[in-house]
């Protein structure tokens, strides 16, 4: 124990306290059991196939090769990509506008608007899908009311409009949450910046453009990452609306629905696990790119 005396003073100051580990152990236990183990198990399953002859056989990367040549998988992935490219920018832009307007002092009843716009976040996606499904209805929904009143023949639940109908439900539910993330970030802008801008005679538009927007990058990256996850793992809304329009929603409408239907209806657990892993990797890559680009631009 002679080297104790030569230990660096800084190492002595931060004393090892195993109590910290004891506090952390329950979390590590459940984390391992419901995150690490399922991931490893899915990885294991993806390397096997259950064959009529020979039973459970190791097949290497065969399942992955099948995913990449599976038109049903690509159709679903293409659909959620379109969804991501259209719905997410619209939703984030609306969230941004709402956050900027809330943050401008030129508004009465700020706290009412803040709560009101956030409220749909508290509505379960099942209720949101049922609710909008009813309202979209031409029979007794709002769309039906509009058609009766104006003699129009708007039909939302059709091939052409269905993805947009889903996008609207997703936007309705998440807009307020994203608005609040951006709004909290705006609230943390140092007042000195505004004072300097006021002294320079900057208009509120210039303040918004030159001070607020650059400041929002960090929060926008977070909102964007949550949206990446939300769109690429789309499941709840199409799966629920399927009941209303069975012929519009296939079992492979989104990759997540495809994996679900493969494992529960088709009993193809190995292939379902493979699709889950591929989608996990796709989402991780996109989230990573978003983060990288967001931070790089913030540095410039």
């Amino acid at each position, binding site marked *: 124990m002679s080297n104790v005396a030569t230990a660096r003073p800084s190492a002595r100051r931060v004393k090892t306290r195993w109590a910290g580990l004891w*506090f952390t152990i329950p979390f590590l236990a459940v984390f391992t059991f419901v995150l690490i183990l399922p991931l490893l*198990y899915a990885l294991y*399953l993806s390397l096997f196939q259950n064959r009529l002859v020979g039973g459970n056989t190791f097949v290497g990367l065969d399942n992955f090769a099948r995913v990449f040549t599976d038109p049903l998988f690509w159709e679903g992935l293409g659909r959620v990509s379109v969804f991501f490219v259209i719905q997410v920018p619209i939703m984030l832009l609306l969230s941004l506008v709402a956050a900027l307007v809330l943050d401008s002092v030129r508004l009465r009843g700020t706290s009412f608007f803040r709560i009101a716009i956030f409220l749909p976040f508290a509505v379960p996606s099942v209720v949101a899908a*049922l609710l909008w499904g009813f309202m979209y209805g031409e029979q007794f929904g709002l769309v039906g009311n509009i058609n009766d009143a104006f003699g129009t023949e708007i039909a939302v639940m059709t091939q052409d409009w269905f993805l947009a109908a889903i996008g609207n439900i997703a936007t309705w539910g998440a807009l307020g949450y994203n608005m609040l*993330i951006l709004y909290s970030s705006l609230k943390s802008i140092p007042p000195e910046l505004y004072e300097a801008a006021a002294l320079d005679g900057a208009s509120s538009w210039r303040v918004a453009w030159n001070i607020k927007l650059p400041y929002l990058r960090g929060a926008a990256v977070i909102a964007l990452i949550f949206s990446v996850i939300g769109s690429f*793992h789309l*499941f709840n809304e199409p799966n629920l609306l399927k009941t209303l329009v069975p012929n519009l929603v296939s079992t492979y409408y989104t990759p997540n629905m495809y*994996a679900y239907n493969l494992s529960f209806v088709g009993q193809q657990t190995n292939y379902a696990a493979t699709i889950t892993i591929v989608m996990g990797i796709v989402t991780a890559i996109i989230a990573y790119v978003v983060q990288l680009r967001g931070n790089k631009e913030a540095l410039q």
Partner: protein
Amino acid sequence: MSIATRKRTRTLAPGYEHIRPDRPAPRSIGLTIVMVFFALYALLPLFWLFINSTKTYDSLLNSFGLWFSGEFALFDNLAEVVTRDDGIFVQWFANSILYVVLGAGGATIIATLAGYGMAKFTFPGKKAIFAVVLGAIAIPGTALAVPTFLLFSSLSLTDTMLSVIIPSLASPFGFYLMWIFARESVPTEILEAARVDGASELRTFTTISLRLMAPGIVTVLLFQIVGVWNNYFLPLIMLRSEEIFPLPLGLQLWYLEAAGPQALPIYHIIITASVLSILPIIIAFLALQRFWQNGLSVGGVKA
């Protein structure tokens, strides 16, 4: 705080005297109208839901959606909701409460302990744990649901209440928030003083640290409650027996009876049941505004 609320004495540069930062900016009608549109978009569907929970099946089908019509049938509808199928809705409601108490409550306790342990102590392996858990924040629950089901079914855990509760217990995001709250709200000097006095770490935690972390705990708890109460995908995958369904699955079951081939005339019942199932969460959010709005700013800005 914006410039408008700050008292200023500095003189303005020549030529800019017309800008008066010491006066609040004039209210803008244009901006207010923009926000009214946002609020209408958010609230009209909820308004539609509440209005239509007061209608009979016939007036639901034949009246304008955004106003009352016919007899006020809310109480009849409520009675039908709670008595239909031998009162299974009450069972679903109780199940949801149980899942929330054990799942969201457990997740919050576990995240609080871990956030505190990681923020206030030093021990070998801490950095590695942190890296792995933070990496997991970006993994969505839906991506893990199918693998978790496969694992649970090989352990014969599916179609039990535990299969919904256990996955709810691990919340990397809750852990992350609690880590920030613990780091910022519990001064290390207080812990050192307690150690000098001979208090055990557990005693210090329960008597001092917990109280300091309370606002953060409420925030995390609220978000866990929303997550578990609204969870659809996980129970959909795990559960087969109707008597252990949470509310979202129960609502879906009735919805299938109404919109599916059976075409039962129960849309008004489903709408009333939906109202009942969102009320507790909306009330919780309105009552605890102060907490979750602060919590969001911590999670959103500092991540």
